[in-house]
């Protein structure tokens, strides 16, 4: 029983990471209608930033997290302003091709700079220790991930629901033309949102190194799961993405534990089943 609970905790921690990876994609899809298959590259970027700072410069772990978010966010804004915004008006096919190209290039750059091997990351002792919570032992890092994910989700919900920026984004998601009509600077909004999405992915990537590992194949490794989160949660919905990410993380971990032989593909089978019964995604909103 306690084994099951600690597996579940594992799954929820995993779900938190999936949430951080996918929230940016969800919002950019909802807002700019941009199918960004390279979103995982931002997570990878955050991971490498954290690894370089931690292993190379001895920056404390907790400081590498905001640094990863900021650096990745800035890269996101620069890319958005220089290239990506020209891709928004293109048809889906062109968006898919462009973003696959971007993901390939990003993986190759990582490979050239850091080599094809897994990146080691030495976590501080307080994170590797096992903690006992309600009689169940879990690693401190899992607990840290869960708490961190909750805080991040809370911050995002607050940002989107209680700030002017959030109101503008929501208005533009609902009706872009009307938002422009009432004087919202949509261009700047897009850049900020894209950067924010990249920053959260970068943060997720930095957090993921100690849990999922990091290598140049990262951009495509979690692509299916991230797209699943977006499709189930509904593009542009924070709450939906959060719930979907936790559910997927938990289900994936649970089945890998319960039926290890087939656990790897239960989640894909689930995806196919879902598409048979809910062809337009559970949220039912078309992208």
């Amino acid at each position, binding site marked *: 029983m306690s084994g099951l609970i600690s597996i579940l905790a594992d799954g929820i921690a995993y779900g938190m990471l999936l949430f951080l990876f996918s929230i940016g994609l969800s919002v950019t899809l909802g807002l700019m209608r941009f199918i960004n298959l390279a979103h995982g590259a931002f997570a990878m970027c955050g991971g490498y930033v954290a690894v370089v700072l931690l292993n190379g410069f001895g920056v404390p772990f907790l400081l590498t997290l905001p640094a990863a978010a900021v650096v990745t966010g800035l890269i996101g804004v620069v890319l958005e302003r220089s290239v990506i915004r020209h891709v928004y008006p293109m048809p*889906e096919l062109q968006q898919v*091709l462009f973003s696959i190209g971007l993901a*390939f290039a990003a993986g190759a750059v990582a490979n050239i700079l850091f080599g094809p091997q897994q990146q080691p990351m030495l976590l501080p002792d307080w994170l590797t220790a096992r903690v006992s919570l309600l009689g169940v032992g879990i690693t401190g890092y899992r607990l840290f991930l869960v708490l961190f994910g909750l805080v991040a989700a809370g911050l995002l919900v607050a940002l989107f629901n209680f700030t002017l920026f959030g109101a503008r984004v929501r208005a533009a998601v609902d009706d872009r033309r009307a938002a422009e009509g009432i004087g919202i600077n949509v261009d700047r909004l897009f850049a900020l949102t894209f950067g924010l999405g990249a920053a959260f992915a970068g943060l997720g990537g930095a957090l993921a190194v100690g849990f999922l590992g990091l290598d140049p194949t990262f951009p495509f490794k979690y692509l299916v799961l991230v797209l699943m989160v977006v499709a189930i949660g509904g593009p542009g919905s924070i709450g939906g993405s959060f719930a979907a990410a936790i559910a997927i993380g938990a289900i994936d971990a649970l089945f890998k534990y319960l039926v290890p*032989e087939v656990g790897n593909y239960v989640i*894909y089978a689930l995806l196919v089943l879902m598409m048979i019964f809910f*062809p337009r995604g559970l949220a039912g909103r078309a*992208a």
Partner: protein
Amino acid sequence: MRLIRIGAGLPLLLAAVASFFLFPEYLSLLNTLFILAIFALAYDLLQGHAGVVSLGHAVFFGMGAYTAAVLAAHGVTEPVVGLLAALLLSGLLALLLTRIVVVGNDLTRLLVTLGIGFLMLEAANQARWLTGGADGMSDFTMGPVLGLFRFDFAGETAFWYSLAALVLVYAFLWRLTTSPFGLALRGIRENVRRMPAIGAPVRRHLATAYTISGGIAGLAGALLAQTSNFASLDMLGFERSAEVMMMATLGGTGSIPGVVLGAVGFSYLKDALSAMSPKYWHLGIGLVLMLSVFVLRGGIAGGVSALLRRLRGRG
């Protein structure tokens, strides 16, 4: 685009035949290029003609490869029989999957095709008793083609065998894309919302296209397994699915000769460059793909027809 569609088949065929005499030491590479051209043509029926993207088309390629390999390992060594079986089984698999691929929007379609790809990869990996798992399958021998032509070490038989298949597929698809059905597919590509307003059964059209495309992709996979005497997991992996999309796009999606050129050029470069350094190959292909969205929208074929238009305009 129309200009080069009509006239390009014959020169391409002549070039292929000439390559047999010009590059006798590269026959097995040429054989691979023909096979990938067939695969790209099959995929482009969806992307270029019907305007539907798939990120898991290697599933059918792999299905065909394993069908041919498993049949040969169980004593059915006539290559043409294996080819037909692969065509049918892959087509059948595609038909079964149409229900979930054809409905929904682009996002769910990408997701589903990706998901099916990973699912099939995992299934082939698990079914070691049938597929050899991660080691692949190589313990089979092919008989002579039609009982007459034995596969030789230099790859001469394989060359003609695959080229014959390519010519047949090329002709079939050329006919298909100029037919009423082909026009309906282009209608879906140009405006899927108008189609129901002229009474068109869009799902049925897409299902038919998907089945044909899957079948031909399986044929290509079978050719590769038969001529290389090997079937492995990478034949149905994500990278192969992404590559076929790149071949079609760089060659000029929607143009049959363009796609053939794209597949041949892409695969040749890949063979040459990735031998030197796979990471620079990935960087290069990524950058080219990103650029291709902005310049040279129509790929090689688009570039050629734009050039022809310009020359004619001057002359």
